[in-house]
């Protein structure tokens, strides 16, 4: 653990009380998160003069994620091994929770212990995002913190720079990369994207916990050693009640992150507030033993754009591109919870497209279309497209999938392994009947199989 995060950078070096940067830069990046810093790094490497404007006291100060960072693209751009990583993911566990049962599947492939560890690491965004922004600065970008972009400058339909909350804080530049996160006040204010429906936005809350009086609590409880760590995902009633979402526990170096996320429409209606839902999840019989004796070191919240492929806004405008959460690039289909890799991929392609357009001396949307095309043929949009149907169906079947089926599976499991004096034939028969009942008999099971046939 390092000292107070705000002490780690000298604000005097970074802050500029009255930036006078008009036309000094080729591109302005709004937000020094994963997407923004990757775009800035890519553009700077391609010879552009780049200004990154970050509203937090340092990059990462305003950023929250679940937390696993997926690094396949980052590895091509920076030396990931020298980054402030916490642990690599050596085990992925998926637990289905009723109010008092757990049925779980765990995967620990041996190869995950070998570099590059399936490109999956826990990190602290306060440390990692600052490190990544510094790589962009090393490549020549300029970083200004504690400065909020309040609006975009326009000439006709063309974006020609940003307005900030600093005195004389107008910065004109041919290109603007909008990497402001999911709460996209600037992009929405400038009509570059519509406001998302609350059915398509999740609210997430997370606590980082430490174990003050228990050495080796993480190693012992999660059965890991060295730099190995674990990622536990939970769904069902015991995780988020009747809401559409899930919970998680991730191991950091000497803390754990525990949290959950579910749709805002559920939070507004049937499901208790996020904090109450988190309390219940932490107290679940399958989760509580992992967290016993822990103390909260940080409580955070964020919103997550989960509208999928259909909700991706227009990515390319005259003089501007949208990346990361601003572009709605998050995949949550229950099994895969991804966003960090998609943010980086989008920042990379956007940065390349801007550099290409700059080479040709053009700023129009057509000249930047390479970004959209690259993203559409990358895993980012292809994965979102692939699971679009699944997310819709899971939403429709949520009662069955998150409540009835987990209960039936747990009941069938305890029946199947029941120790009494009845023969196993009887137990197996009862277990089978219970499972079939939950899915509507053989016909129902067949219908479900057809309905989810594209899963594999």
């Amino acid at each position, binding site marked *: 653990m390092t000292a107070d995060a705000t002490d780690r950078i000298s604000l005097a070096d970074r802050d500029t009380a009255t930036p006078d940067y008009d036309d000094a830069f080729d591109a302005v990046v709004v937000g020094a998160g994963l997407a923004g810093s990757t775009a800035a790094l890519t553009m700077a490497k391609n010879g552009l003069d780049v200004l990154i404007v970050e509203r937090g006291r340092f990059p990462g100060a305003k950023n929250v994620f679940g937390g696993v960072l997926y690094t396949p693209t980052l590895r091509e751009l920076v030396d990931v091994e020298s980054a402030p990583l916490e642990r690599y993911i050596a085990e992925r566990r998926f637990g289905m929770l009723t109010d008092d049962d757990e049925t779980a599947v765990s995967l620990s492939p041996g190869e995950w212990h070998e570099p590059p560890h399936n490109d999956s690491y826990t990190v602290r965004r306060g440390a990692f995002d600052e490190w990544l922004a510094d790589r962009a600065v090393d490549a020549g970008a300029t970083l200004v913190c504690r400065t909020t972009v309040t609006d975009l400058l326009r000439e006709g339909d063309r974006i020609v720079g940003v307005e900030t909350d600093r005195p004389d804080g107008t910065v004109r530049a041919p290109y603007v990369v909008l990497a402001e996160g999911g709460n996209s006040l600037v992009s929405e204010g400038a009509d570059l994207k519509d406001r998302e429906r609350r059915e398509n936005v999740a609210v997430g809350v997370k606590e980082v916990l430490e174990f003050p009086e228990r050495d080796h609590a993480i190693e012992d409880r999660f059965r890991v050693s060295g730099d190995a760590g674990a990622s536990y995902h939970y769904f069902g009633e015991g995780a988020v009640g009747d809401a559409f979402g899930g919970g998680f526990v991730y191991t950091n170096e000497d803390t754990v992150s525990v949290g959950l996320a579910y749709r*805002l429409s559920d939070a507004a209606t049937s499901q208790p507030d996020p904090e109450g839902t988190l309390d219940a999840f932490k107290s679940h019989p399958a989760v509580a033993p992992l967290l016993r004796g822990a103390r909260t070191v940080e409580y955070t919240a964020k919103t997550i754009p989960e509208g999928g492929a259909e909700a991706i806004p227009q990515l390319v405008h005259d003089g501007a591109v949208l990346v990361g959460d601003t572009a709605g690039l998050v995949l949550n289909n229950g099994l895969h919870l991804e966003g960090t890799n998609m943010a980086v991929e989008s920042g990379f392609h956007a940065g390349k497209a801007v550099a290409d357009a700059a080479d040709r001396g053009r700023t129009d949307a057509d000249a930047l279309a390479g970004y959209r095309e690259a993203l559409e043929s990358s895993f980012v949009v292809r994965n979102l497209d692939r699971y679009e149907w699944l997310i819709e169906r899971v939403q429709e079947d949520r009662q069955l999938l998150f409540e009835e089926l987990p209960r039936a599976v747990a009941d069938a499991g305890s029946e199947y392994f029941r120790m009494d004096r009845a023969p196993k034939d009887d137990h197996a028969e009862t277990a089978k009947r219970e499972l079939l009942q939950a899915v509507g008999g053989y016909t129902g099971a067949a219908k479900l199989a057809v309905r989810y046939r594209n899963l594999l």
Partner: protein
Amino acid sequence: MSVQPGIPDVDNESLEDRLYTVKYEDPGDSHLDVTIPGICAEKCHTDDCVSVCPAGVWRVGEDGVPEIAYENCLECGSCRWACPHGNVEWTYPDTGAGVTYKHG
């Protein structure tokens, strides 16, 4: 003692203690507001802003217009989407004020 045999108690800290873990700089003015108070008072019967907020920022006021404890805000933006009347005014706290996360 645990309520359920075999299951340890987990000490869930109060919201106040949780918010105390977050480094915060008061911008001086609220970055949150309602656009038209009359909509809250007359048209809103669900208080969705209160239901979704993870930080207890929004509280039902006596006149039907919510009271806003903006200094609790974790800047997640939930209230902005949750309000079915689009009646939440949301801006970012100025010049780096508001929350600073160390872990995130």
